[in-house]
């Protein structure tokens, strides 16, 4: 049962995949698990779909853990998926949202990397694909999207943690997501969740120009982080990737925005000071709980502003 699952702990990939089955079993009329493809090392990639019916309704995409060592993001995904399922029919705004839109959630976007962080190298960030001609493995999956690919803020060195890969969408994990988003064709929001440094960002990363919807995205972001801060006072910065972190090409939300998904955002979840990628497990639920306030605000906004 999902009731006996410890959401305040970090879990290996197999446990999370197994937990997904219990979630589906517990909420069969709301949650389905769909395999969207396989990873480089042939692990299944499962997306949880929250839907109350219909086919290809307007949808919201949430992916987590594209950088495998950012463990609090995957853990937040598990908590959030359970929250969505358990709050349907009790939380009015979420219920109303799910009555008109679907939510797709990819909790383990980089399954090979995640497994590798549990078995071999806790600090691993990239995929695990082999790079011909190099002893170094892996591509930074958030430099691999077809959005200013191989431009500033990505490395051409396969040994770098920000290696962009040989070509856009060379990583099967990225291609799987691209295929789903494109074949569906009705996503209205695309949200990527990372950790850490407490930021809520919107496009662009591959250049520093304002996107056409900059003002609206900025206003949404600022309101979302106000909601987030109510619980624990966690302070976030809001802005475009380029302006509040650094120029970085080949990022997921730049790709989604250019595809026409206006409400594209990326979170960098909390650190609380001195833990970085090693946020203690007792911080998972507070992190997820506060993040939920911002996520819900964005999702409801998307529902109320069709385009």
């Amino acid at each position: 049962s999902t009731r006996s699952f410890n959401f305040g702990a970090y879990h290996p990939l197999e446990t999370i995949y197994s937990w997904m089955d219990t979630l589906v079993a517990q909420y069969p009329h709301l949650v389905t698990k769909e395999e969207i493809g396989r990873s480089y090392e042939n692990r299944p990639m499962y997306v949880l779909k929250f839907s109350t019916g219909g086919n290809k309704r307007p949808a919201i995409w949430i992916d987590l853990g594209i950088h495998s060592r950012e463990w609090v993001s995957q853990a937040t995904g598990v908590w959030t998926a359970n929250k969505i399922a358990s709050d349907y029919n009790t939380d009015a705004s979420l219920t109303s949202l799910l009555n008109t839109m679907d939510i797709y959630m990819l909790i383990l976007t980089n399954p090979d990397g995640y497994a590798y962080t549990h078995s071999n190298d806790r600090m691993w960030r990239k995929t695990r694909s082999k790079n011909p001609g190099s002893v170094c493995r892996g591509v930074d999956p958030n430099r691999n999207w077809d959005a200013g690919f191989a431009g500033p803020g990505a490395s051409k060195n396969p040994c770098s943690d920000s290696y962009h890969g040989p070509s856009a969408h060379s990583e099967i994990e990225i291609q799987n997501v691209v295929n789903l988003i494109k074949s569906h064709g009705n996503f209205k929001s695309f949200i990527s969740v990372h950790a850490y440094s407490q930021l809520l960002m919107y496009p662009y990363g591959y250049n520093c120009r304002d996107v056409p919807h900059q003002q609206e995205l900025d206003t949404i972001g600022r309101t979302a982080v106000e909601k987030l801060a109510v619980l624990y006072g966690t302070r976030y910065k809001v802005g475009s990737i380029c302006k509040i972190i650094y120029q970085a090409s080949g990022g997921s939300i730049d790709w989604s925005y250019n595809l026409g998904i206006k409400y594209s955002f990326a979170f960098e979840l909390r650190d609380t000071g001195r833990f970085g990628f090693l946020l203690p497990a007792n911080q998972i639920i507070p992190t997820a709980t506060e993040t939920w306030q911002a996520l819900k605000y964005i999702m409801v906004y998307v529902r109320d502003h069709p385009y």
Partner: protein
Amino acid sequence: ERVFTGDQVIRINVQSEEDLQLLRVMETQEEWELDFWLHPVTTELPVDIRVPRSSLSSVKEYLHAHAIAFTVVMENLQEVLDEEKAEMEMNQMQER
């Protein structure tokens, strides 16, 4: 399994554009094998670096030489990882 015994994570609260430039030079020092958890991009955000044990003295000398203040966030990364792993194992046993 890769171990990080003696690796430290240091934090630099960047004071100036000059500091940023000096920290960016560190990013190009491949022989130090630094792992930038937070990169030097702005004076508004800290810079966190995992420094392998083998590079600690060189890195600290460099920072001291340029009067860049830093704090040690994690004295020994492996100890933190061991604690994390032990906690995970305990949780798994409880769930069983």
